[in-house]
């Protein structure tokens, strides 16, 4: 039996493509602003069987977010559908069914009711809808992962805008233009966490 999960850790199961970049940054900023720790499969170094390491990472996180908004096949003739996200969601559902108190998963989509068509076995699962917009990711995270004294969405948006604007500097620093690269991911997290300290903690609700 693995050790108990980190109660503030969230596994992000997302597509690693250029079009998803702004939403990816919004997920990182939003989670960091909520004092939650994002984790990504790209954190995992190579070596042993990758799937085993991903499963360990899922087990170590109390929550997971599975963004199934990229169900389209691109127009490129060699394009194939990407099955990694549904595969990792399936692993997560199995783990959660075996140990319900250890894990909670959420499904995100960009379009309402599409999940029922793309993954009908998930009927009955209420997906969070982000409409493909970073601001909806931020407000959605704030609603889905509620906790005492959450930051206002305006604050989350300010940090998002700044972190997004710093991406080229982070690329230069790390010698890559891949936003999902491990070093870039860690820089984005570090920046989001540091900028979060700029704001005073929200006052408790009366």
């Amino acid at each position, binding site marked *: 039996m693995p050790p108990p999960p*980190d*109660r*503030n*850790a969230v596994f992000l199961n997302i597509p690693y493509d250029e079009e998803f970049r702004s939403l990816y940054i919004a997920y990182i900023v939003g989670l*960091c602003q909520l*004092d*939650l*720790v994002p*984790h990504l499969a790209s*954190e995992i170094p190579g070596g042993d069987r990758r799937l085993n390491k991903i499963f360990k990472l899922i087990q170590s996180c*109390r*929550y997971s977010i599975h963004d199934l908004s990229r169900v389209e096949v691109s127009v490129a003739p060699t394009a194939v559908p990407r099955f990694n996200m549904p595969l990792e969601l399936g692993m997560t559902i199995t783990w*959660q069914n075996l140990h319900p108190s250890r894990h*909670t*998963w*959420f*499904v995100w989509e960009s379009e309402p009711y599409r999940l029922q068509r793309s993954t009908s076995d998930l009927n009955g*699962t*209420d*997906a*969070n809808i982000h409409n493909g*917009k*970073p*601001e909806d990711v931020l407000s959605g995270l704030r*609603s*889905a*992962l*509620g*906790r005492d004294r959450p930051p206002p969405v*305006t604050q989350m*948006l*300010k*940090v*998002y*805008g*700044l*972190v*997004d*604007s*710093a991406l080229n*500097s*982070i690329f230069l*620093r790390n010698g890559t233009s891949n936003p999902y690269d491990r070093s870039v991911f*860690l*820089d984005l*997290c*570090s*920046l989001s*966490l*540091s*900028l979060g*300290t*700029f704001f005073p903690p929200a006052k408790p609700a009366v």
Partner: protein
Amino acid sequence: MPKSVYITAPRPTLEEMEKSLHISKARKRALQPLVDELKAKLSHREQEPVTSVETEKRRKRASAA
């Protein structure tokens, strides 16, 4: 699965979060100039409210012009 949860776990400290991500002190040091620069921008922007990402984009376009 629920659409939302209420998290009751104690909030981690900044140090605990950085440790969970294995963010090294060297990485933090290297990023500090960028953090300072962005905090200065944030300080300036605190003068006016931000309402949406579109507003941010307009602001970027205006400052680039």
